[in-house]
């Protein structure tokens, strides 16, 4: 009996050791970037790392002072929020209609749209946006983000809308509610979970997107990922400030998603990579 318990304890210890190793592999770069962002120029690139070095906040000051960090932070925030609002206004009704009419070819179309390589769309967009004056505007960036947000939202919301019983709507119509009113007052509140899921994942996608703003934004609307890339070009081997810039660029999205963890996991388990 005692022998059996020892084996159980050992196997449990082994399990947690492996677990710790897995966490280490996936979380290690984050520890490293936090550590490096607090190092002075001398200790930042030291091999092996000097774990006793005095931390400094100089790197963050350098990021704040160099370039347009705050401007880019504002740009990123504005573009993300505008995209999320526009996406809900456009996609929710469309998803509702498709869910109620159950047209399979439409779902395949939605799926295909998600697959189109972005660079292929960017080439014509660049020409068209320049011609229409959309280059380097918030409106242009929001439009570009909508190309992946709309198919993804429709795809994910279909299930939520299908779960809303038609009887609920019919009851509202009988009480004299218009179709529009029924949708806004009855149906939309019932799919709130889906809306939060979409907005959480959407925040992540739109905050992280790099290729679209790289090409479509100029001096005025540069977003944080583009700022980080530019920062890399300016500070090639200066690890401290680079780590600080990387950390500052991803901190908002990490905090936001962790606050909405439950919904994020729902979306990911659904197959949520773009």
């Amino acid at each position: 009996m005692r022998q059996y318990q020892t084996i159980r304890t050992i196997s449990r210890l082994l399990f947690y050791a492996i677990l710790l190793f897995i966490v280490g592999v996936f979380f290690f770069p984050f520890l490293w970037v936090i550590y490096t962002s607090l190092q002075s120029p001398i200790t930042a690139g030291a091999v092996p790392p000097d774990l006793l070095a005095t931390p400094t906040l100089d790197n963050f000051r350098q990021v704040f002072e160099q370039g347009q960090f705050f401007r880019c932070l504002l740009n990123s925030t504005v573009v993300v929020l505008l995209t999320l609002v526009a996406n809900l206004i456009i996609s929710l009704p469309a998803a509702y209609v498709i869910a109620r009419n159950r047209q399979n070819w439409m779902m395949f179309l939605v799926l295909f749209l998600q697959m189109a390589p972005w660079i292929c769309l960017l080439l014509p967009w660049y020409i068209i946006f320049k011609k229409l004056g959309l280059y380097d505007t918030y409106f242009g960036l929001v439009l570009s983000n909508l190309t992946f947000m709309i198919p993804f939202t429709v795809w994910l919301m279909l299930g939520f809308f299908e779960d809303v019983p038609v009887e609920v709507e019919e009851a509202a119509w009988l009480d004299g509610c218009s179709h529009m009113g029924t949708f806004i007052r009855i149906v939309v509140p019932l799919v709130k979970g889906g809306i939060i899921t979409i907005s959480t994942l959407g925040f992540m996608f739109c905050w992280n997107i790099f290729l679209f703003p790289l090409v479509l934004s100029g001096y005025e609307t540069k977003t944080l990922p583009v700022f980080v890339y530019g920062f890399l070009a300016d500070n090639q081997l200066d690890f401290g400030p680079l780590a600080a810039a990387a950390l500052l660029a991803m901190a908002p999205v990490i905090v936001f998603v962790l606050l909405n963890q439950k919904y994020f996991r729902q979306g990911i388990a659904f197959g949520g990579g773009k």
Partner: protein
Amino acid sequence: MNDTSLVQRTLEYADSQIRWLFSVPAVLVMLGLFAYPLFKLIATSFTNEVLSSGGTIEFVGLANYARAFFEDHHFWRSIWITLYFAVGSTLGQMILGLGLALFLNRQFKGEATFRMFLMFPIIATPVAMSLVWSMLMNPMMGQLNYYLSFFGFPKSLWTADAATVLPSIIMVEIWHWTPMTMLVFLAGLKSLPKEPFEAATVDGASRMQMFTRITLPLLQPYIFLLLLMRLVHGLKVFDKIFVLSGGGPDRASETLNIMIYNQAFGAMNIGYASALGSFLMLIILLISFGLFRFRQRSWSY
């Protein structure tokens, strides 16, 4: 005189037609952002358009395609690099993700905390994380070699060597997305019915047999969905390669995506880039179509 009633009647009529009116904004936006640009992409691929002021745009027929197929030595190489990257990273994520999911498919203390840590790679801004990896992999000052030496790995030049650049970026891609495939597989494993496993245990099936005969077939829908999504995603990867190597050294990591970007916004040859883009579009269409056909044929569960 009848203004208000006219407005009201119009509104009522619109309300009754809501079934299709509701989809109009989405359809319009998608037409504007997909349909017209795709037409424009193909149209541009037949011209010699360049991204600079001046110069006339001329119709050059299939010259851009001929240049890609017969003259540009990097074209076929970049297709090989693109496929190598997409297939390599997809297989890595699928196998590792499934393995981890099988290992973790049980209840244990600290499960929630563990999952939270695993979510970080998916959430973090890819450009920022690519920057972090590029610092870690730096051949002179990077610390990755140092940490790996504890596990007995030899020193590597990572992205600075044409021979290791692709595996290095694939490694980062696998690091980035394995948590996602793992979470999807885990959700799949948890939703499997218990009865087949109980029956198999009674019949004395080995663990390996249960895995290949029951778990894998039951997981097939998840495997298929992930395979399709990760493969198509792999063909589109841009950020990581752009930041980690920029396509080099010696163009050894220049996938079709990067090549198109460089041609369009580096060399300003948007006509030629559009021809390459049209071709990439065709590849992705064929692959997704092929996978759908394959699924319809082998769908038996």
